[in-house]
């Protein structure tokens, strides 16, 4: 039996994560708090069901007409003066951004939060090219200082407590007075980052929704760093996935409403920013150039897969992550992927292939909590289970990369044997009798099974016999 490498690596990361008691406490506390907030913001289950039927339909409709909407979006954006670029993969996207920055002679970049930029590894590429990149979302700034990836798609530094942040800030801003107080730390970040906003040559941001009808980029945030990144520097580059488009502006309110309630329990975020063009000649501020990079990176392939296309409905609220019992225990870094939690377990294997990403589907108990809270009704547990099946028993011509590659012979043989016995009462009875007779010989160690549990021991009398003795007939 050869256990695939990624599985071993996942187990090692999980073991490591489970050993860090303080980090686990941070996650537990944060998740309990955020779940309570969501529950307060969406108190009525029937009302939620109705609302998400609408948002799910809006997203499904947009995906069904994706190529047409993207073309319309491009046309409107270009008419508004926003340049549109298309990237098939991470390398192309990075090259486009780097090119734009070089053409503008930009040496320093201030960034708003963008998971897509994490997906393509943009910061590293820019760093290697000698361009200084500063993350401006407080959580992103903290993990950037720590040299870590985000551990949550909405709250990147959720794994750190105030003491860890204080130590980090002391090391990086030694000229400032040390504080462990959250308000003091926030004020410190404000001071340090203000100067960066004023000096940056370019701003880079993500996008929450693209509106085809009006040619608009919609950005949702609480801090104001998104607004600053997109309006203070002379150049703004937005990057996002091709699935983010919706058709009409009037489809936005229901989506916005469920996005923020699901993510953080807020009826709305502090800022909702609608960007429909660069600074006009008579305006006194705003970027002179706005560019949008549309990234495929496997999304078109997912779009073509009838079984998994619903994955692309995702609006990245993070609710599935917040409600996942596995995530709460192991945290975001244990997944070792850009997107953690249930959405990660669903998206990453499709994006990276089952060989590299398939192990993530095992980080799921199929409890169903994620599917219950998803604001666009993605059937996450069912799809994650389907992905497991695709690893070992794929559909004919499954478009998933490495479909069937996780099958291994010993396991398949064992299941076949079991099926042969279980399907025939006589064989089954015979096996049960054999096992009860030999019960004293049952092994005490069963590999991975007994690492955390006790070995099962056959009972002296099997259930069928007990039932017969109690007067039940086999029929």
């Amino acid at each position, binding site marked *: 039996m050869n256990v695939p490498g990624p599985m071993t690596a996942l187990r090692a990361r999980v073991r490591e994560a489970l050993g860090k008691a303080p980090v686990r406490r941070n996650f537990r506390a944060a998740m309990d708090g955020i779940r309570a907030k969501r529950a307060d913001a969406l108190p009525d289950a029937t009302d939620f069901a*109705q609302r998400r039927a*609408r948002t799910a*339909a*809006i997203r*499904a*409709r947009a995906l*069904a007409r994706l190529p047409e909407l*993207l073309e319309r979006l491009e046309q409107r954006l270009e008419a*508004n003066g926003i340049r549109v*670029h*298309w990237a*098939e993969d991470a390398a192309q996207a990075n090259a486009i951004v780097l090119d734009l920055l070089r053409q503008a002679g930009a040496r320093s970049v201030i960034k708003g939060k963008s998971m897509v930029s994490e997906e393509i590894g943009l910061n590293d590429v820019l760093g290697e090219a000698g361009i200084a990149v500063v993350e401006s979302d*407080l*959580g992103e700034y*903290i993990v950037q200082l720590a040299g870590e990836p985000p551990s949550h798609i909405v*709250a990147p530094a959720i794994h750190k407590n*105030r003491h860890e*942040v204080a130590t980090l800030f002391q090391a990086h801003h030694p000229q400032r007075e040390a504080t462990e107080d959250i308000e003091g730390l926030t*004020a410190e970040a*404000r001071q340090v*980052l*203000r*100067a960066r*906003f*004023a000096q940056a040559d370019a701003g880079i941001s993500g996008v929450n929704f693209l509106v085809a009808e*009006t040619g608009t980029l919609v950005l949702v945030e*609480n*801090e*104001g*760093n998104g*607004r*600053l990144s997109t*309006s*203070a520097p002379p150049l703004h580059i937005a990057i996002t996935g*091709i699935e983010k488009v919706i058709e*009409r*502006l*009037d489809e*936005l*309110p229901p989506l916005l409403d469920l996005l923020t309630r699901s993510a953080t329990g807020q*009826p*709305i975020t*502090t*800022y909702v*920013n*609608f*960007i*429909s*063009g*660069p600074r*006009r000649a008579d*305006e*006194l*501020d*705003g970027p002179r150039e706005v560019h949008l990079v*549309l990234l*495929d990176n496997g999304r*078109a392939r997912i779009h*073509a897969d*009838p079984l998994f296309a619903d994955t692309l409905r995702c609006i990245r609220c993070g609710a599935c992550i917040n409600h996942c019992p596995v995530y709460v225990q192991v945290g975001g870094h244990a997944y070792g992927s850009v997107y953690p939690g249930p959405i990660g377990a669903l998206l990453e294997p499709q994006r990276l292939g089952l060989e590299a990403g398939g192990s993530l589907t095992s980080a799921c108990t199929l409890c169903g909590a994620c599917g219950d809270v998803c604001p666009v009704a993605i059937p996450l547990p069912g799809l994650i289970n389907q992905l497991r099946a695709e690893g070992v028993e794929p559909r004919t011509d499954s478009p998933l990369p490495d479909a069937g590659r996780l099958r291994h012979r010993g396991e398949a043989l064992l299941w076949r044997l079991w099926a042969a016995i279980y399907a025939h009462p006589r064989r089954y009875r015979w096996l049960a009798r054999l096992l009860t007779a030999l019960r004293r010989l049952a092994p005490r160690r069963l590999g991975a099974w007994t690492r955390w549990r006790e070995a099962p021991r056959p009972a002296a009398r099997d259930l069928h016999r007990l039932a017969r003795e109690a007067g039940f007939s086999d029929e």
Partner: protein
Amino acid sequence: MNEARNHILKRLRTVQREAPDTNALPAIAGADAETLITRFRTALEAVRGEVHRLRDGDWMGWLARELPARGVSNLLAGTGKIGHTLQTHPIPGVTLHRYDRPVEDWKDALFEHIDAGITGCRGAIAATGSLILWPGPEEPRLLSLVPPLHIVLLDAANLHADLATAIRAQGWTQGLPTNALLITGPSKTADIEQTLTWGIHGPRELVVLVLG
């Protein structure tokens, strides 16, 4: 990169899928107009916005009283009506600055020396306590963002029940400005221990003067 574009669109066109009809979904109930101001106030105060109801011409008097009391000595206004009124009626102890030149000419001063910015707005949304701003030449984008205190004048007649109603009533699909905004409270973050903290990058305080 036209090649990338064509490849992506071609891949997306390999499937035909039925698009659900979103128009068939039941309408969302609208709100009753009577309670709009109360709702607006409740929603905005819940996120630490300050709301004051004033008679139409009283905002100048309010500023003259409150700004010095709050330690504001440098006030920034746009080139429109509000800025003009402020210029003709100076407030003792408060220096008025006008946002009348490109930001590049004075970015450092804007970021460092301005205590408060004042703007109008296109209206507001009662359900969420949100202000609708369309920055433009008279009231540039950073006027409502960089100063630590943002004061907004809102005409009570311009309240809408919810975002969908506002988008329809104000004809947003007929043409949006380069930047449109919803602002709901002062800037905030909960990135450290999920603890809510105010005034991270944008204004620390948001004051709305509801007029009329």
